[in-house]
């Protein structure tokens, strides 16, 4: 591989990149949150007096909202502080700010909270979801879709395999805790924060605080890892209110314990999956899913209708039914965690596929390939499948698995699992480019979150269109006042969607240069001479300085804009019985191979080799793409084997720390081979497909199948801890 150095590498390696946790401003106060002492209960009183009695402390609670917010209480549906009911353990009930961190923590502890505790609602099984009844969690989403003659499929089947899978909650564990600095600047509520979505945060903050969007300014900082957890505002509303109350800038950062307790992430789910098989083919599949949505509000859920489709799998099945329920429990609200709930759904579906193949006595890869979607097929909801490289990935993964099996030691198994995903290219964005005599600037609101999608991905698109060398392209970060609108860095969309806006803006620029040079636009390339950019077309050479007008030079350069507001395919709404389902925008497949060793006495699993075949459309920047796959696989291995949020009976999170919540460490990751399958074009520039989320999706399933191959243990629960494997092996 040729090495392409990330432009942010040097500064990051020298510790010269300032994250939100590193910022301080003169006169700044330190904020701290007052946690709810129970997971469910009624608030009798909150006494801020003892905190306010401490010199220099500012304290705010629910009764202060009316005086601090212009429109009484902001968003009544999701108040910054609850006034009556506690929804989850450690939910912020009040907030304080003080001149030092220590004093702020002391003040937070001094607040006296009196509550009437109630038993937390945590159970999502063991009752009729259509009629949960009293003391059961409320249903916040119900989705149901059907297609084909399910009764005929199940009535005439050779056999039916019915299985139930349970998956645990997992946390993003970005190493940088949530942090921000808020300041009221005249009429403007300004927050500098670590966010994936500056514009989304502005919109949410406006709604929560009851302010018009133009009075809120969000300035993004470098992001120390996000994985979905730094989209919706978390610390920002409290910091802004503390700044408003104190008249000072306020820094609010979560402790790592709070990071676990308050983070919006994946929560437990239960999957029932039943397949009817006749003549070696799946003729019908029925899926029933229950999802713990934590303290989510009804009507705001998208995960249920989106992720449930993955339980049916990317396979041709003539008759299907899928039904999902999301319940409001006493945990923090469900949030997006790298491919929200897809690794969990696919774990159930793909383990089920290997169990079906075993029952049939057929090769699991061949079994998949005889069912897998290809371009032109239709999804379960009747959407036409676009270019889709999954079959090619499967073919190559199957061949590699066959090779690996030849050197498999005793108690070792090799298996394949697949996953698919759709980039969220429907979420739109705009790009602004400024070409000066010496550089090309890409004006952006979002900072790089780590994956490289901003600092390499969209930059590579501009490079390709204009032929400009990478050290002449710079991403110029602006706050929400002056950056062009973009939906944000999430849903694997940055390259695929924002990249299209950048591509369009670069094409506009190239057209303009072509006109000024009187040559065909597609012949124009930018090169450099004596430190100046020069437009070249055949024998024409003209410096950018001489091509720009005086006005343009005075304005810093020639500006061009591009917009991308994508469209999705359409689903056949006749198949939808209830709730909201979503179409896919493109089809991104992946097939993984794992070799695992299972200790027959303890059930301990060690992954010894791993390979990922990724349907990438077009790889735009190889090192970045490879890094995304390696990182996604490692994160998936955590979901597969060790990561689990454990909630105590009283509703508190009992493993809120990195010692007890185990993410993979360096020694636990096997060598990971990364292979890209190109040519099945996605929606992005040059056919690129988003690669942020796809690599995590097949991992738990692939490991599960390798455990099955190694030991015969049919795993139905995540994570696959030694204890669970031992139980499956009947050792316990």
């Amino acid at each position: 591989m040729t090495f392409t150095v990330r432009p942010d590498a040097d500064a990051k390696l020298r510790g010269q990149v300032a994250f939100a946790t590193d910022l301080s401003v003169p006169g700044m106060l330190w904020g701290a949150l007052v946690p709810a002492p129970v997971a469910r209960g009624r608030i009798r009183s909150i006494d801020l007096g003892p905190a306010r009695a401490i010199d220099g402390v500012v304290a705010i609670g629910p009764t202060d909202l009316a005086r601090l917010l212009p429109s009484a209480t902001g968003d009544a549906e999701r108040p910054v502080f609850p006034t009556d009911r506690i929804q989850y353990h450690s939910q912020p009930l009040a907030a304080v700010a003080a001149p030092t961190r220590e004093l702020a923590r002391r003040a937070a502890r001094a607040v006296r909270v009196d509550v009437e505790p109630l038993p937390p609602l945590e159970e999502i099984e063991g009752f009729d979801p259509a009629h949960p009844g009293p003391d059961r969690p409320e249903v916040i989403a119900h989705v149901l879709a059907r297609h084909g003659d399910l009764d005929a499929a199940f009535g005439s089947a050779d056999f039916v395999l019915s299985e139930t899978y349970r998956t645990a909650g997992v946390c993003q564990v970005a190493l940088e805790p949530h942090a921000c600095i808020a300041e009221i600047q005249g009429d403007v509520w300004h927050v500098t924060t670590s966010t994936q979505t500056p514009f989304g945060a502005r919109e949410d903050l406006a709604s929560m605080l009851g302010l018009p969007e133009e009075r809120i300014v969000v300035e993004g900082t470098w992001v120390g890892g996000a994985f979905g957890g730094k989209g919706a505002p978390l610390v920002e509303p409290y910091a802004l209110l503390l700044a408003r109350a104190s008249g000072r800038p306020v820094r609010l950062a979560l402790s790592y314990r709070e990071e676990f307790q308050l983070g919006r992430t994946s929560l437990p789910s239960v999957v029932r999956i039943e397949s009817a098989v006749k003549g070696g083919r799946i003729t019908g599949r029925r899926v029933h899913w229950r999802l713990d949505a934590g303290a989510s509000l009804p009507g705001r859920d998208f995960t249920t209708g989106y992720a449930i489709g993955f339980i049916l799998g990317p396979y041709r099945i003539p008759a299907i039914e899928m039904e999902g329920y999301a319940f409001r429990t006493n945990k923090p609200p469900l949030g997006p965690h790298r491919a929200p709930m897809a690794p969990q759904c696919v774990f159930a579906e793909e383990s089920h596929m290997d169990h079906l193949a075993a029952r049939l006595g057929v090769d699991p890869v061949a079994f998949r390939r005889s069912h897998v979607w290809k371009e032109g097929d239709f999804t379960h909801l009747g959407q036409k499948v676009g270019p889709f490289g999954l079959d090619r990935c499967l073919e190559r993964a199957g061949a590699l698995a066959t090779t690996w099996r030849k050197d498999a030691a005793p108690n070792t198994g090799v298996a394949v699992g697949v996953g698919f995903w759709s980039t969220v290219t429907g979420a739109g964005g705009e790009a602004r480019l400024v070409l000066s005599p010496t550089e090309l600037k890409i004006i952006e609101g979002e900072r790089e979150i780590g994956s490289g999608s901003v600092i390499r991905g969209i930059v590579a698109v501009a490079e390709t269109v204009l032929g400009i060398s990478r050290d002449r392209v710079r991403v110029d970060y602006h706050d929400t006042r002056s950056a062009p609108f973009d939906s944000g860095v999430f849903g694997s969309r940055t390259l695929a969607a924002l990249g299209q806006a950048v591509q369009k803006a670069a094409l506009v620029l190239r057209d303009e240069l072509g006109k000024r040079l009187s040559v065909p636009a597609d012949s124009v390339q930018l090169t450099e001479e004596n430190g100046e950019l020069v437009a070249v077309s055949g024998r024409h050479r003209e410096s950018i300085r001489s091509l720009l007008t005086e006005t343009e030079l005075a304005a810093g350069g020639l500006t061009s804009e591009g917009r991308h507001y994508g469209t999705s395919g359409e689903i056949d709404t006749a198949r939808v019985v209830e709730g909201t389902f979503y179409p896919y925008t493109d089809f991104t497949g992946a097939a993984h191979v794992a070799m695992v060793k299972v200790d027959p006495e303890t059930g301990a699993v060690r992954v010894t080799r791993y390979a990922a075949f990724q349907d990438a459309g077009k790889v735009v920047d190889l090192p970045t793409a490879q890094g995304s796959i390696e990182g996604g696989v490692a994160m998936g291995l955590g979901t597969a084997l060790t990561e689990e949020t454990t909630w105590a009976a009283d509703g508190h999170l009992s493993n809120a720390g990195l010692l007890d919540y185990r993410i993979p460490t360096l020694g636990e990751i096997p060598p990971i081979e990364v292979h890209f399958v190109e040519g099945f074009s996605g929606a992005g520039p040059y056919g690129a497909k988003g690669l942020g989320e796809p690599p995590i999706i097949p991992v738990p399933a692939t490991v599960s199948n390798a455990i099955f191959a190694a030991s015969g243990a049919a795993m139905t629960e995540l994570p696959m801890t030694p204890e669970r494997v031992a139980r499956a092996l009947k050792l316990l």
Partner: protein
Amino acid sequence: MTASPARLTVNAVPVDLTTVPVGERLLDTVRWRLGLKGTKEGCRTGDCGACTVLIDGRSVLSCLTLTHEFTGAAVTTVEGLEGDPTGARVRAAFEKEGALQCGYCTPGFVVALTSLLKERGAEASAEELAEDLGGNLCRCTGYAAIVRAVRRVHGEMP
């Protein structure tokens, strides 16, 4: 908390700290008193390694180290490795292998690996060095590129 005089040498510059409260963490002293923000604050419980600094050349977790415990010692942060030849080799290897993404854990890795190379680089294998980095967590890279960077810098040892 009572204050007592503390003298540290940070990055070869003597620093006289007369107002550090007893009980202050070295992490907070370097970050908030000295403004050396290259040392990152992650978990503050000694589990992630992002705050790794050197005390008299050996890696320590500055979040679990009380400043007063090491009065008189020489502290080196990532900023102090700017002119260090081993530190420069580590940075070059990480850069070439793409062994960083968000960059939050990165200074901790640079400091820890630099100290490992100086301490045991001559006799330890690349695999052993990589294993000794097990106390530094990274969530973005999946460690694959970090292991490649360790191999590269180990292979290029003078």
